[in-house]
């Protein structure tokens, strides 16, 4: 019998090694798998490369992971926010590396990794600093930049409902990077608010088919409240 459900978030991440590349879902706090990021702190893996849209908010979730000293490098599109002080201080102190990626390139590079695409040409970023040094090609009269996939050793995502085969459905804009990150990682781990029997998610409503998911864990829903910026305008 296939059963991808594991007892706890800590157990789900017990084999994460130092230096792993970890794709973490979420856009700001929507879809951020905070139970899993907390479990990663418990696991204590170091020198991690983290891929997320942002670079942490307040002192929870991804920010807590950075504050705990687990992260060597972050790949993201929008690090600077009113409440990103943990990242800001690490970056200014030279303690964390940043690879800034246009958001659509971030998404498409992750999708490409999941779909077995070796590289792709995109118009985004052509002629800008973020494409400096990259291969370009003119195709059909338009200029494109060559971009490579982003593979993950692990993906940590937050979904709404899952079953023991790993099928997932999401909740509103918390879906964001979840589906593509599950595809792009060797081991995708989902935290879900509800685990249902097989068939409990209607096949028409499965967003991430179980083949892309290795482990899932049930977690309690945490009602998110935004953190106030520290002495800055929101």
């Amino acid at each position, binding site marked *: 019998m296939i059963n991808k459900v594991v007892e706890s978030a800590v157990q789900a991440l017990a084999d994460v090694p130092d230096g792993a590349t970890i794709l973490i879902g979420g856009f700001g706090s929507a879809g951020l798998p905070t139970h899993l990021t907390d479990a990663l702190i418990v696991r204590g893996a170091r020198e991690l490369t983290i891929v997320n849209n942002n670079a942490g908010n307040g002192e929870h979730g991804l920010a807590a992971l950075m504050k705990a000293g687990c992260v060597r490098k972050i790949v993201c599109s929008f690090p600077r*926010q009113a409440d990103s002080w943990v990242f800001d201080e690490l970056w200014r102190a030279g303690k964390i590396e940043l690879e800034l990626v*246009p*958001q*659509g390139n*971030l998404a498409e590079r992750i999708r490409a990794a999941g779909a077995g695409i070796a590289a792709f040409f995109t118009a985004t970023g052509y002629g800008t*600093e973020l494409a400096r040094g990259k291969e370009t090609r003119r195709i059909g009269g338009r200029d494109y930049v060559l971009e490579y996939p982003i593979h993950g050793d692990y993906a940590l995502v937050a979904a709404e409902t899952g079953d023991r085969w790993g099928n997932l459905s999401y909740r*509103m804009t918390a*879906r964001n990077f979840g589906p593509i990150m599950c595809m792009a990682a060797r081991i995708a781990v989902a935290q879900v608010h509800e685990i249902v029997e097989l068939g409990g998610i209607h096949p028409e409503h499965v967003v991430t088919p179980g083949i892309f998911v290795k482990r899932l864990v049930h977690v309690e829903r945490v009602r998110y*409240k935004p953190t106030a910026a520290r002495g800055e305008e929101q």
Partner: protein
Amino acid sequence: MIARHSRDQMARHVARDIPEGAYVNLGIGMPTLVANHIPPEREIVLQSENGLLGMGPAPAAGLEDYDLINAGKQPVTALPGASFFHHADSFAMMRGGHLDICVLGAFQVAVNGDLANWHTGAPEAIPAVGGAMDLASGAKEVYVMMEHLTKQGKSKIVERCTYPLTGLGCVTRVYTDLATIHIRPEGLFAGDLSKGLTLEELERISGVRIGALGP
């Protein structure tokens, strides 16, 4: 004495020019004001980059749900007919040329339509790009909404951008507190001049050639 357009007036100018049926992405900051000025009888679909088409206004106090947010990470609502989708699909809407109009803020716009809006280039500044480059290269029309002058009084419409570029030759229209400027292959053309401002004065302030927009 020049009576500058208020931010709401600028937003009204943008809203006036968005046609029925358009799929539109409004950037964070000033462009979000545009949503308040779209006439109720005109059906326009707002896209939010984080995976929502058919975005509605902010919810009533107490009904905020942080699983339903906009690009600025503020709580919003989903209108009847709305859809949710993952990030690669969301950016395919931009990159695949499906989005009709995006409205962005800017540091500088050049006469050739070059856009600079993601980074000042200052070594201390932490760069953040988000979806700006995807919108700049992918949306069918890129409109910019910005103050005409910097705090130091320098024109943000320039011959050549000095800040790092977001996109090349992408901007077709700029809505400022002084005028609305159309960028065309044959040059810049201004309408919506603020009260008391002449075209000659606008040209002098901007430091670039600007013609009058025909009726």
